């Protein structure tokens, strides 16, 4: 131990990570409601509109609905409840 010293760890205490399963996937999106969530970052609305058009052209059997949270960066339980009520899948973007 000669010449050795002991020092304290400078890091904080991380929370325990609890595993969560992914939601069951849909076998096919045909005839399903797919929510396209515009997360409100600058130009995300243009991206989501292009995504909507892509589905209309390539997978017209998918019903797409663009939806927006009440503000950026924060959760919107009301919007999630609307999606969970009648949606089958979701795409959210564009995160910067």
């Amino acid at each position, binding site marked *: 131990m000669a*010449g*050795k*010293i*002991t*020092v*304290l*760890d*400078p*890091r*904080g*205490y*991380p*929370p*325990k*990570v*609890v*595993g*969560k*399963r*992914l*939601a*069951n*996937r*849909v*076998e*096919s*999106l045909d005839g399903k409601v797919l*929510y396209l*969530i515009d997360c*409100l*970052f*600058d*130009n*995300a609305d*243009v*991206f989501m509109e*292009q*995504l909507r058009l*892509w589905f209309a052209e*390539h997978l017209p059997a998918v019903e797409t609905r663009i939806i927006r*949270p*009440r*503000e*950026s*960066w*924060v*959760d*919107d339980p009301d919007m*999630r409840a609307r*999606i969970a009520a009648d*949606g*089958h*899948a*979701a*795409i*959210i*973007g*564009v*995160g*910067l």
Partner: protein
Amino acid sequence: MGLALALEEQGIPTVPISTHVFARLAKATSLAAGMPTARNCFVPQPVVGRTASELRAYIEGADPVSRRPFMQEVLEGLTQPLTDEDLKGATFERSTPRLLEPDTEDNLRQLFIEQNWTDFLPIVLPTEERVEAMLRGTSQAADRIVGRLRPTSFREAWEFDIEKVAVNAVMAGARPEYLPVILAMAASGISARSSSTTSWASISVVNGPIREEIGMNSGVGALGPYNHANATIGRAYCLLSQNLQGGSVPGDTYMGTLGNNWNYTACFAEAEERSPWSPLHVDHGFRPTDSTVSVFFGGWYTHSGFGPRETWKEKFIRCLTATDHFSPPLIVMDPLVARAFVDLGYSKQSLIEWCAENARLPARQYWDDQWITTLIKPHAVAGVEPFASRWKAAPDEMISIFRPEDINIVVTGGETQGAFKMISGRYPARRPGAEPIGLIDVWR
């Protein structure tokens, strides 16, 4: 990202899309949420400023992370059956030990650098003796929980106690008598190492009797490296922010594109005795005898000037309208400037109101801003004033860009010149019923 994971928990298969520079961050966020196999998909950076046809090309092109067709990744992410790994997620405990393995000073210094626990300037190694001495700076128990910090709102928050703050205070070279100030900063819940792409800093202003007790500088060079307390308190806040929140590592827990020199240290005291006006902390409801530290989230821009000279109004208007208006100005002025404004008939409040009244831009310039669009527009569209009126304004209509309550004035400096600065800085909002932010005396 958090929204996508919450939807997964609600039973909705969800694909979050980010630009490729956020790939490591997305992976880390998914893992910390217990869903390491979340179906993240990526498009090239940037999205901002790209035309509809350019964004369509992103959609029809390849995911720059997986190198596979982007839409194939998206569709498979929503439809491909789950694996065992998807079904169980990831559960694990992480711990940070109290003590590191004994080693030589040289090896420990290297370890701290390799682990990104420093600001790459020399540190004082936090031995037990040094930390114990630092803890004598407070009467509070070492294991008392101080608070939680995180790099940004959607990341997990890490918790810390007084001893952990003391460890970082030692590393920064602070003295025990500074510890109550540093604890108040740590308890603010505001990180001095925000991971936002806008390279923020936190600028701290100390008021009240403790300024004199610990010998802070509010004279010549108040904002510069000319005082032990100013320098090391600010540095301690920066170091503790990065280490107690779970890191500040570029590409992972730090995404500020330019970085910010105020992320090294940014703390100064107000020259209350030489100011003609009430001190900052009294403006925010504290007693003059309270010792406080006000943590301003900002540091994004700085404008400077002299005066007030004959054309000061034009100069102020240029500075105010040249700000990035999602971050209001903290106006720092030498006592010479403050007294000259008094001679012109202004109180602090009337000068603030003049600034708010005259900081005006055409609406199209106000709204043509990445963060005004992202952060303010949703409130405007929802009818929240004053943003809704700004949103309804015609493109060339002049609109006010700040409310009086957004603007703060602090007086400091050595009276060698009538100088002022306008520094990006938002005073922290106090939640109803919550303890006041920044009261130092509770940490003595």
